[in-house]
């Protein structure tokens, strides 16, 4: 009996699932069966395949073989496929073309920018309670959160920055293209990126706008002229207070005064495992950490497209942490209510009241 137990515990130890209690029992059994210590040691060793083995070099060769196959299979139509090594003449014609483009288009582009002549623009709008996903013409991917609006050109011009304008919240995975930096314009700041993934939150109704970087690097320009620039590192976010509307209306870039904006840089907020509150919505998760109930209500409001009111203003200052995925609005409210700090009701019009 004891021996059977010993084998079971050795197995569990090897699999890394031994509990503390089991570890104590194992120690006792090892004293009882001294030769088991040797066996235990053998299992802790490094084992190797008896047949064919692949060392690092062979793995590298396999990878190269794989890359060749990929280039054959994935047609050139998919421009996000693994980049093939380009022949040199293509590079030179590319450079020549870009010089020409700069010469001919450059002037025109500056003019068109001044005169505000619209390029062929497309717009994606999401209502409250819905989210959407979009593949941009350059292969970059955008997730648009509820109640947001994204303006983007139907086609990105060659060798000019890829520019989009956002109102609301979006998560971007930008395809790298050194010749065409990617820019996101919001009313609070402008972001310049090369290839990376990041989240931008700039809802008109909120008192601050936030840029959160997951991977890569981005520069946040607080003015369009790029005089106040903050570079973000992965896992950092920048919170920028939004100007009162009077200041916001000025469209001239040179006239903006050299005031120092009280922006602040901070770390992204992990709630559990790999869930980060700033980007959880992309994975259809609603996550918040130590957030005032007032802001949680605003999140739910946006997520489910409902209205939430407070009958007792003091409740706005309660703090909550949570991650929700498939729960209904009612389930979430019930879960929060179990903290016994507030009660919720729904009135005839469907509006939620917190008291």
């Amino acid at each position, binding site marked *: 009996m004891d021996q059977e137990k010993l084998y079971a515990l050795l197995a569990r130890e090897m699999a890394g699932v031994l509990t503390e209690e089991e570890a104590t029992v194992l120690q006792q059994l090892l004293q009882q069966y001294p030769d088991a210590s040797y*066996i235990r040691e053998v299992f802790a060793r490094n084992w190797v395949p008896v047949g064919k083995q692949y060392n690092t070099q062979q793995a590298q060769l396999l990878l190269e073989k794989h890359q060749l196959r*990929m280039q054959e299979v994935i047609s050139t139509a998919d421009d996000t496929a693994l980049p093939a090594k380009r022949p040199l003449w293509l590079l030179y014609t590319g450079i020549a073309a870009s010089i020409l483009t700069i010469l001919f288009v450059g002037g025109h582009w500056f003019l068109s920018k001044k005169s505000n002549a619209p390029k062929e623009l497309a717009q994606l709008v999401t209502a409250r309670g819905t989210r959407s996903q979009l593949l941009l013409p350059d292969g970059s991917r955008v997730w648009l959160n509820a109640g947001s609006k994204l303006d983007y050109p139907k086609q990105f011009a060659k060798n000019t920055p890829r520019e989009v304008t956002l109102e609301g919240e979006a998560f971007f995975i930008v395809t790298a293209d050194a010749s065409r930096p990617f820019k996101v314009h919001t009313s609070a700041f402008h972001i310049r990126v090369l290839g990376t993934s990041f989240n931008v939150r700039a809802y008109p109704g909120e008192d601050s706008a936030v840029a959160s970087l997951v991977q890569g690097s981005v520069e946040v320009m607080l003015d369009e002229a790029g005089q106040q620039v903050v570079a973000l590192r992965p896992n950092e976010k920048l919170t920028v207070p939004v100007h009162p509307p009077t200041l916001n209306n000025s469209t001239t870039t040179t006239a903006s005064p050299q005031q120092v904006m009280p922006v602040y840089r901070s770390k992204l907020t992990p709630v559990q495992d790999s869930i980060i509150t700033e980007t959880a919505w992309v994975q259809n998760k609603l996550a918040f950490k130590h957030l005032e109930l007032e802001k949680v209500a605003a999140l739910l409001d946006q997520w489910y497209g409902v209205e939430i009111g407070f009958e007792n203003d003091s409740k706005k200052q309660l703090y909550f942490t949570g991650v929700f995925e498939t729960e209904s609005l009612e389930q979430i409210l019930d879960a929060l209510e179990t903290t016994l700090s507030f009660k919720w009701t729904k009135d005839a019009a469907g509006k939620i009241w917190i008291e």
Partner: protein
Amino acid sequence: MRENEQIKTLFERVCYENSIQAYNELYITLCSRLIHFSASIVSSYHLAEEIVSDVFMVFWQKRNQLSHVNNPVVYLYVSTKNLSLNTLQQQKRHRHHSLDTLDTEMLAIAPEAENGMVSAEVAQKIERAVRSLPARCQLIFRLIKQDRLSYREVSQLLEISTKTVDAQLTIAVKKISQAIRFDLSDELAQTYLHQDS
């Protein structure tokens, strides 16, 4: 586990950032294990290499839809399993395509013999004991000992309960332990007895 987290990070970098570097690293890290796993189903290393290459190809093509994948390791193993079974079916070499008919030739593992602790003789005994295990039991032992999958991951991959995984692993450990035990030279056993007393 640390390695698992690393794999997850690489996987996410591929999904969110289209990172080719992370993709290549993932390939290097996982290809050998996946090839062995696939080879045990299709009975050919050559075929298995192609299958794993295909698995990674699909992964690249679908990378932007995979950001919801909770466990990249399980995802890649399950893809490999499915593609391997499909390949068998296309070749019409077998009527029934399941993990019941595994080629254990590709699964056997044994401790490295040169490290002093384990003599060549003991290593051989262990190898024989491993080979004598039922195919599925051998597969489970390999997935946990060699590929360092968790109970949960194995249970998801093979569609069995974690209890079964635990029981099968215990059987493997028992058989191997007994083989070592019989082989333990008196001398060695004595050394351990002395140390203990």
